[in-house]
């Protein structure tokens, strides 16, 4: 196979012991490469989600906080903060290979999907008791931890809810004295604040973000009495109520013209928040996780106001007065972790009152345990609005194993509707129905029901 010299005479003079060095070389190379694979870690490995304005800031906050844990328990923790874009793929990799972190943060909407993998330790009654009992946690936060009726595969860690951020200065300049109370007033205010000639708009939405789009489709759907996924787990994307809900959202751009057409290209909340803080848009519907980037900007903090998302008045038949989905992050323990007891100890620490107060203050998110709410940071100001919304006016996204598929299909459908609207094409009931029918076909086609 290898071209060899035809000169047979030379072969006789070849050095004899050729194989031993070769073998040795081969072994050295292979063993050197494989040595890197071994080695047992002694530290507890914790993958944290990005909650603050940057992973570097998160790393600092967590390191300071977890120093207390290490000092108290003697368990060193290795923290890795992972951006939301990579987190799910990293977790899937860890779940598949059985190696990786001991403790991970997960987006709470993934809970049911991740629960189905069986890669996480279920928090049964005994485990919950060690955390202070199920009753210690906000009911709303607990509703987004897995399929109802089964021991959750994760416990709540940070809470978020949707509300409308508004620019108090723009409101004053336009002579608007009170935040709008219902949807019609909301639209009127948004129209009043819109002046396309000066590149001023009433509202900004991340129209190219499929997750945000899916959240809004779900939220507006609840208000219209639409269930994208019914009790039996069947998809119902094209019910008249679902179509009306999505249409109401997309019409903000297509028909009401209170959203910049360019928002159809905006693919993340921080990007939309940038349009809000620069004064381009007077309002932004976002979760409180948008607070850190907003407060980091040049916008004066006293100009940032928050009011609950207004509801249609009267509510469409069958609709529910829900103003936010249950947002936030949960924390889970990998079943393959060789240090389960220590991992559970870390979860207990993270959900303790003091840690909840510290971390949620640093990140602008909400505690998930009731006893942390007596802290003034959460009982006053903007945080109180978000907290009340999460506790009292929220609904969890469908806790089904195919939830992520619901987000991708419906979210992408809404994104395409925004793109149509931006390019000046018609977006009425028929187009919305078609987009949702398409999404439903894909959801069903890909194995959903």
């Amino acid at each position: 196979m290898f071209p060899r010299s035809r000169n047979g005479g030379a072969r006789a003079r070849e050095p004899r012991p050729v194989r031993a060095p070769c073998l040795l070389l081969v072994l050295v190379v292979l063993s050197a490469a494989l040595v890197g694979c071994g080695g047992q870690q002694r530290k507890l490995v914790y993958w944290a989600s990005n909650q603050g304005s940057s992973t570097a800031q998160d790393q600092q906050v967590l390191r300071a906080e977890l120093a207390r844990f290490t000092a108290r328990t003697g368990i060193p923790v290795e923290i890795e903060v992972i951006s939301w874009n990579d987190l799910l793929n990293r977790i899937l990799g860890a779940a598949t290979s059985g190696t990786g972190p001991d403790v991970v943060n997960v987006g709470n909407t993934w809970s049911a999907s991740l629960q189905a993998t069986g890669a996480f330790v279920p928090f049964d009654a005994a485990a919950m008791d060690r955390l202070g009992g199920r009753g210690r946690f906000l009911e709303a936060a607990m509703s987004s931890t897995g399929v109802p009726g089964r021991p959750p595969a994760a416990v709540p860690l940070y809470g978020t809810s949707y509300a409308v951020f508004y620019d108090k200065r723009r409101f004053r300049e336009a002579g608007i004295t009170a935040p709008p109370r219902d949807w019609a007033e909301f639209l009127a205010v948004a129209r009043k604040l819109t002046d396309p000639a000066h590149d001023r708009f009433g509202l900004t939405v991340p129209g190219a973000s499929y997750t945000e789009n899916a959240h809004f489709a779900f939220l507006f759907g609840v208000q219209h009495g639409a269930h994208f996924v019914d009790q039996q787990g069947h998809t119902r994307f094209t019910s008249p109520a679902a179509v009306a809900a999505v249409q109401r959202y997309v019409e903000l751009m297509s028909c009401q013209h209170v959203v910049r057409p360019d928002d159809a290209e905006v693919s993340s909340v921080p990007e939309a928040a940038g349009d809000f803080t620069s004064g381009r848009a007077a309002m932004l519907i976002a979760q409180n996780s948008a607070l850190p980037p907003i407060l980091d900007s040049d916008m004066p903090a006293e100009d940032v106001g928050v009011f609950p998302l207004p509801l249609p008045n009267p509510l469409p038949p069958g609709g529910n007065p829900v103003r936010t989905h249950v947002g936030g992050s949960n924390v889970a323990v990998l079943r393959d972790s060789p240090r389960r007891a220590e991992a559970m100890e870390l979860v207990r620490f993270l959900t303790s009152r003091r840690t909840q107060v510290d971390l949620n203050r640093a990140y602008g998110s909400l505690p998930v345990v009731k006893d942390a709410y007596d802290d003034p940071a959460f009982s006053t100001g903007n945080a109180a609005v978000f907290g009340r919304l999460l506790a009292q006016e929220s609904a969890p996204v469908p806790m089904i194993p195919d939830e992520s598929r619901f987000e991708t299909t419906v979210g992408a459908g809404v994104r395409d509707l925004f793109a149509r609207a931006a390019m000046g094409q018609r977006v009425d009931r028929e187009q919305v129905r078609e987009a949702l029918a398409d999404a439903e076909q894909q959801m069903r086609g890909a194995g959903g029901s």
Partner: protein
Amino acid sequence: MAVLHQRRSRAWTAPYLLLAPALVFELLVHVVPMLGGLWMSFRELNQFFLRSWVSAPPAGLGNYRFAVDFDGAVGAELLRSFSVTAAFSLLTVVFSFGLGLGAALLLQRPFRGRFLVRGLFLVPYALPIYTAAMIWKFMLDRSDGVVNAALSGAGLGGGNFWLLGGNAFLSLVVTAVWRLWPFAFLALTAGMQSVPGDLYDAAECDGAGPWQRFRFITLPVLRPVAQVLALVLFLWTFNDFNLPYMLFDQSVPSAANLVSVHVYQSSFLTWNFGLGSAMSTLLLLFLLAVVLLFLAATSWRRRAS
């Protein structure tokens, strides 16, 4: 006699032994994952079997049947994505090749500053792809992008959405060509180095014009390089994932939905790894067929000549 035989066998095994580490890693890095993907494509691998993926139930040809059922939503999407990718690859290869050839020809004759121009031409290829894609993303932005600003400055309109709808395809091709043509330029420049200079001199003495010199000297010498280049460019563009993924984030418009992004979205975002693997395998088979056809055609032509 026995000693001679033994010695001969030693000499024979040495190269294989030396190759063994590389072979082991080639197996580990390429072949085993590929076989793993193939295995997955015959399984119903979703979130329910992620942890104990070895026990995922067999799906037979179900995933494949699903992927090529062009009446269903999944198959239709795949077919659309496939045709978008084919058009994208074809355009990108043709334009990259054309630009590369043009530039290589222009820079064939030495002149002052040739070195500098050559370096400048290579910049897009030397730039990390992430940086390049982000810069294009900013430039193509509707309201703040330089493309629209330039267009409206020149009185040619502006205010277009370059990253939405049908325009997204155009943006993708332009960005890909911008990024790839320096490679074509580099390969063809290298190929032209092997043209003996006196051949041109001789041809010029015989009265050959620039076109004839190109047609009868440059092109035949370049042929083997050009063939391989075209194949490589095609494989790269057909498999391109980074560019669309970075240009459009996770919301790739269907006009720019290249097949590798499509496969990623139908497996990673929807947790349907069996189906994604089946699509990948189909893609692999298609590319394999293209390569084999290409090799057959080129070797046939070589034998014929």
